């Protein structure tokens, strides 16, 4: 069971309090009607699905009730960082620095 740091609760909390909410930073077109079929397809369905660093959303459904973002390695399943919804996508350098820091002693 994952231990997830909710950026609102500021606490590591067990996975069963959360539900996963898909890839993060998938921007909904401001005016969907002007999006082409291909753009809309991309919004609906195209996903990064990387084996490695992934930006994703979680919902602290049995906790504070907030949606937030996380950077997680999909191979090791380790969380590198969590941040509030609406905050910008963290820079690669920041993520890399954190990855080093998070190595077990």
């Amino acid at each position, binding site marked *: *069971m994952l*231990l997830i740091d909710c950026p609102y609760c500021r606490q590591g909390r067990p996975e069963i309090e959360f539900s996963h909410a898909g890839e993060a930073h998938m921007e909904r077109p401001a005016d*969907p009607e002007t*999006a082409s079929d291909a753009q*809309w397809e991309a919004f*609906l369905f195209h996903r990064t699905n990387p084996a490695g660093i992934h930006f994703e959303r979680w*919902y602290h459904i049995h906790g504070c009730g907030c949606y937030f973002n996380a950077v997680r390695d999909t191979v090791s399943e*380790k969380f590198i960082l969590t941040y509030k919804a609406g905050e910008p996508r963290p820079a690669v350098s920041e993520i890399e620095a954190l990855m080093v820091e998070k190595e*077990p*002693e």
Partner: protein
Amino acid sequence: MNSFRTEQGGRLCRDRPLGFTFEGRTLQGFKGDTLASALLANGVCLVGRSYKYHRPRGIMSAGSEEASALVGIDRGEGRFDTSTRATTQELFEGLKAVSQHCWPSLRFDAGALAGLGGPVMSAGFYYKTFMWPESFWERVYEPVLRKLAGLGRAPVATDPDIYSSRYAHCDVLVVGGGPAGLTAALAASEGGAKVILADEQSEIGGDLLSTPEVQIDGQPAWNWLKSTAQTLASRDNVTILTRTTAFGYYQQNFLGLVERLSDHLGAARPGSPRERLWRVRARRVVLATGSIERPLVFSGNDRPGIMLAGAAKTYLKRYGVRVGQRPVVVTAHDSAYASAFELAEAGVEVRTILDQRAHIPAHLSKRADRLGIEILAGHTIARTCGHLRVSAVYAASFDAIKGGRKISCDCVLMSGGWTPSVHLFSQSRGTLKWREDIGAYVPDVYTQNAVSAGACDGDFLLSEALNRGAEAGGLAAGATGFEPGGQNRFGVAGEFPLSAASLEESTHATAAARGKAFVDFQHDVTAGDIEQAVCEGFHSIEHVKRYTTTGMATDQGKTSNLNSLAIASEALGRGAPEVGLTTFRPPYTPTSFGVLAGHSRGKLFEVTRKSPIDSWAEENGAVFEPVGLWRRARYFPRDGEDMHRAVSRECKATRTSIGISDASTLGKIEVVGPDAAEFLNRLYTNTWTKLGVGRCRYGLMLGEDGFIHDDGVVGRLAEGRFHVTTTTGGAAGVFAKMEDYRQTEWPDLDVWLTSISEQWAVIALNGPNVRKLIAPFIEGIDLSKEAFPHMAIREGKIFGVPTRLFRVSFTGELGFEVNVPSAYGLAVWQRLMEAGAEYDIVPYGTEALHVLRAEKGYIIVGQETDGTQTPHDMGMDWAIGRKKPDFIGRRSLGRPDMLVPNRKQLVGLLTTDPAYVLEEGAQVTAENTSAVPARMIGHVTSSYWSETLQRSIALAVVEAGRKRIGGEVYIPMPGTVYPARVAEPVFYDPNGERLNV
């Protein structure tokens, strides 16, 4: 006493004799024995039969690594445990053990004939045959193969035991209670850190339990052990769990442990659990899981009486059992000498040690000399003799392996060195490195907050284990913010010394291996099988495993994996590190389903949500159906009615007078804030801005894919306050979705959501007399048609209870939905029933509800729709706010396939035979034919007998259905094709006159 049991010593309670039976024979052991030690003490050597060849097998080890001595333990009705390792089963009074996988008896097993076909049953043989004639596979070969397989006995009765589980947290979890684990726990707990120490055995001590001869800090080992155990037990911050196996190491230091509470007692006390699951989240983990001795691979190495040398010492020292009278020792490692010497000193006639190594450390040969033991250096066993027990071995040097000198014996003690138990470390996804000197893998890179100490880290000396354990425990405490303990060093005296290069020769004798030299004892995988697999091109160790099934038995290769690796690596001509190991997976030892199910059995398997009015329904004979987590009354049969009759009666009453039903399970959300209307505008297809206060409207919600996701009625209570209802099953999902958009898409909107599903009990009243019924009890609401029209909401009181009264209808009759605080739902219902008696009020369930709404053509999301229907498909274009620039799913409605003319559309079906009720799920065709394959153009989504219309009605989704209205379609059922007329989906009161009264 017989000659196998020593006169004294061991950790037995010799004043507590225990009677038990094996194969129906009554035997005796002592408290403190395992089944294995007790059997050995009784001279029983033959314990089981192997999987494939049904070879006689004995006891090979003294721990959970046992691959051979598997038995059934019969604890009474429903409590039969199959494939239990005799080496871990503690003895209790009356224990009943039976052998398995043999017929007619353990001694004379017909299955052993299979052994004669041995060579044909080489690796992967079943892939290569049983294909002719074709029909034989299913009819003959497979049934026979299945019969032969299976090892354990299949369960026949239900388990009466209960199981428990809990979550626990600690600063430091120490797995393994041997010397390393003990000192780790001591050091970790010294400064106050919360420590859990778990060991799978009946008492802590690990290898120390087998080495009373050594001294630690000047005390005899067992005294040290006792005082250490006392110290630990006296610390409030330490929890010691014995008989507790850490079976799985999951993400972020989350481990699963199983504590066995009663298997050592026979049956559990009534009401108390048999096993407990510990789900432990530890800030730091110390792995002190020790090591497992490796067998040697020589021809006939599986005969009963052949066992690991370390196990023989354990039986002697811990259990007071001499495993034989005349052992032969065969080894590639110093440690076997310890066993040999101790046995010799205990009066056992140890005459010969065959050492595969060419050079014997001087101190060993000296001591052997003194004890009169002959050492044959550079020798191994060429083959063995004996049927149900080993009777002799042929000792040979490597270059003259064919011949050899016959040495008679009654047991063989073997040692191929020690394998660190890195199972949990590997499960934690740490990576391993190869250590040539010990011929094994040890932990290298950690990916979790863990550390290994002692034999599992490749340190085989007691002094090392003690000191490295203390160090690890201290570090772990320090890392969790406590004063690190464990500064002191432990002094050990009398320890059996290991020479530096104790494993210079290969640990196995593949070159020597002829005939059946077993690697995996349970699955009967031989060295030859592995060589053959390599020969056939199975070069990856993962292929070797799967092709030969080595390491796939119930012991998961604890004793065999490294030997397979060594043999494969030799056959491949590649170094062991290059060949690698197979993946370690949970569980460390087999773990019962019961303990993993834990509390989640029977009523507690899943929540059953009940409405506030459920008890009335139950008392009044309702038949229930599960809907999501809820149970809902489906119908209320009266004296002997079947569902059909009850539903017809319920429908009729509703159409003619009053039906009452419990709609409390509907999801309800209160949407509040200045931007509430705008928020709903964006969520639903409908427009909300213009909905007046006090009015309500049917709302349709799509997914972004444009398909119908949910629906419900929304009432506007105030400018900035809406009461939204959802489907019963959709409630949680709709709430989550609304929150998602509110928080992440439109955080600028001032609006908040509160689930009020459970705040309100909902009583739906339908029928022409409803107004009359409630009028006397309503306060503060003008019920007249003019003041309170259809699709309106009012707040007031009913029977003095505050209510949100909706004038809505899902039946087409005059309808009110009475929302009252859920605590009052039952009482209000009861009063309505009393008052309604005058009108012959009838309670109806979900089934009648479905019929009534189908008569009106109202859809049920999830029944008419399945997540692939647009509003247009359902004929619900009217629900779409055309002028809105956007709402969830709007864009998707413009995708090409949403616009094609032949999409499936909701229609009504009227069977030509009005008495025939179509089956829901039946398929619709355009041609009147029963030919197969047929082209299907749709299916029946709902179908009922309509008591009101005195005929059957159905709803269906049919390709270009609306164009077909008036035409005929066909419903081919087995044997008959039923024609039906396509109709408008509204069968009753199409103009809604009954509603607006």
